[in-house]
C-alpha cells in the first residue's frame, strides 16, 4: 500500500499535535484514541476504519487514569498509527491490525514519557540556581525546551508508528486463514480494559450501580438493534 506524500506528512503533523496534547498543551481531548485515530483515518481517506480503530483503542485508554506521577501508556500517537493501519488494510481486519500496531506503540509511548520527564529534570537542574533566584527568563526557557522536547518525542513516535503501520499493511493479511482472530483478540482486550477500569474506578458505592444500569442499558440497546 502506497501512501502519497501529503497524507503521510499530515499524519505525522497530526501525530505530533496529539502527542503534545496528551500532557504539554492544551490537553484538549485530541489525544484520546477516539479522536486521534478517526482523524488519522480521515487524512488517509478512510474515516470509517479510523473511527472503528479509535473506538476499540479508546476502550483501552478508558482503563488509564493519568494521575500525577503515575506511569501510564501513551495512546495518543499510538492511536494515530492504529488509525493509519486500519485505513490501509481490508475493512474486516481494521481492528486487529490497528491493535497490532497501536498497542505496542502505546507501551513504547508511555516509556518515552518517563524519559521526557527525566530529561526535563536534568534541564531544571542545570538552571536550578537561576530559578532559585527568581529568573523569569530561566523559567521561560524550561517551558520552551520542555515543549520542544515533547514535540520531538511526539514527531519521532509518529514517524515510527506511521512507518510501522505502512509496513504492516503491506503484509497480505487477508491471505492468512484466521487473520480475523486478531480483531477478536483486540476487541476482547479492549472490553476487559474498559470494564475492569470502570469497575475499579466505580469503587464499592453508588457509582457501581450506575455502571450496572449503564451496562444493562447498553446490552438492551444492542439486543433491540439486532
Amino acid at each position: 500500500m502506497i501512501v502519497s506524500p501529503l497524507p503521510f506528512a499530515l499524519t505525522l503533523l497530526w501525530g505530533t499535535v496529539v502527542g503534545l496534547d496528551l500532557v504539554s498543551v492544551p490537553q484538549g481531548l485530541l489525544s484520546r484514541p477516539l479522536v486521534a485515530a478517526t482523524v488519522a483515518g480521515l487524512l488517509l481517506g478512510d474515516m470509517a476504519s479510523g473511527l472503528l480503530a479509535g473506538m476499540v483503542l479508546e476502550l483501552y485508554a478508558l482503563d488509564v487514569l493519568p494521575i500525577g506521577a503515575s506511569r501510564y501508556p501513551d495512546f495518543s500517537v499510538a492511536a494515530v498509527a492504529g488509525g493509519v493501519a486500519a485505513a490501509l488494510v481490508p475493512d474486516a481486519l481494521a481492528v486487529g491490525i490497528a491493535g497490532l500496531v497501536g498497542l505496542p506503540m502505546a507501551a513504547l509511548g508511555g516509556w518515552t514519557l518517563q524519559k521526557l520527564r527525566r530529561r526535563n529534570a536534568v534541564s531544571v537542574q542545570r538552571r536550578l540556581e537561576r530559578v532559585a533566584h527568581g529568573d523569569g527568563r530561566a523559567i521561560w526557557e524550561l517551558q520552551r525546551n520542555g515543549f520542544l522536547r515533547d514535540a520531538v518525542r511526539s514527531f519521532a513516535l509518529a514517524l515510527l508508528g506511521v512507518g510501522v503501520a505502512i509496513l504492516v499493511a503491506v503484509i497480505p493479511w487477508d491471505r492468512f486463514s484466521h487473520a480475523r482472530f486478531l480483531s477478536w483478540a483486540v476487541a476482547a482486550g479492549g472490553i476487559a480494559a474498559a470494564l475492569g477500569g470502570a469497575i475499579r474506578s466505580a469503587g464499592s458505592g453508588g457509582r457501581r450501580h450506575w455502571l450496572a444500569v449503564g451496562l444493562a442499558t447498553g446490552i438492551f440497546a444492542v439486543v433491540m438493534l439486532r
Partner: protein
Amino acid sequence: MKPRTEALLRLFAVQASYTYERMAGIGVGHASAPLLRDVFATRSVRERREAVARSADFFNSHPYLAGVAVGAEVRAEQDGVSGAVISRLRTALSGPLGSIGDQLIWAGWVPALVGIGLIAAPWVGIWAIVGIVLVHNLLRLWITAWGLDLGLREGLRVGAALQRSWLPRVADDAQRIAAFAVGVAVPIVARRVLLPAPAIEATVAIGAATLGVVLSLLPATRFRVNGLRFGLVLLGVAILLVGGLR
C-alpha cells in the same frame, strides 16, 4: 495582552516542563509570571524575584485547576503575605486540587464525554467526535478561568472557598454519569466490532474479555493485569493462531 489573559493562556501549558521532582512547579511559575509582573511593578526587584522563585517551587495538582493556586498565590503576594505562609498555601492546595480535579475530570467528565462519543459515533460518525471535543474545550476554558478568578478573589481563603464551591458535589455526579456512559458504550462498541464474528468466535472473545475483567479485579493480580498488558497477551495468542497463508 492583559496579565490575566496571558496567565490564562499559559495555564493551558502548565505541564510543558513536567518533572517527577517538581511536577508542574515550573509551569505554575510560568503562568504566574505575567500577574506577578503586574503586582510587583511598583515594588523592589528583589521582592519580585523572591515571589517568582516561590511560584516555580514544587507544585502538583490537576492541571485544569492549577489556576486556583496561581490566582491564590498572586493575590497573597499582592496582600503582602509572608513568603513562608505562601509556600504553605501552595503545599496545602496541592492535595485537594489534585484529588478533586482527578475525580471531576479524569474520572468524571472525560470518560463521560468519551463514553457519549462512543455511544453516538456508530450513528453520527465524526460529528460525535467534533461535539465532544468542542464541549470538552469549552468546559476546559471555563473551569481554568473560573479557577484563576476564584484564586485571585479569595487569596488565602481559597481552601474554604473550594470546599463551599460546586466542585466536590459535581465531581461525584460526573463520576456517576461517567460510569453510566461507559457502561452503555462497552456493549455498543463490542457489538460493532464483533458483529461479523461467527457465534462461536464471538463467544470465545466475550469469554476472554470476562476473564480479563476478573483477573484485573483479583486482589493478587490487579496491579499486574492492566488492560494494555491483557490485550497484548491476547494479541500474542491470536498471532499464534492466525495460521498459514492460504
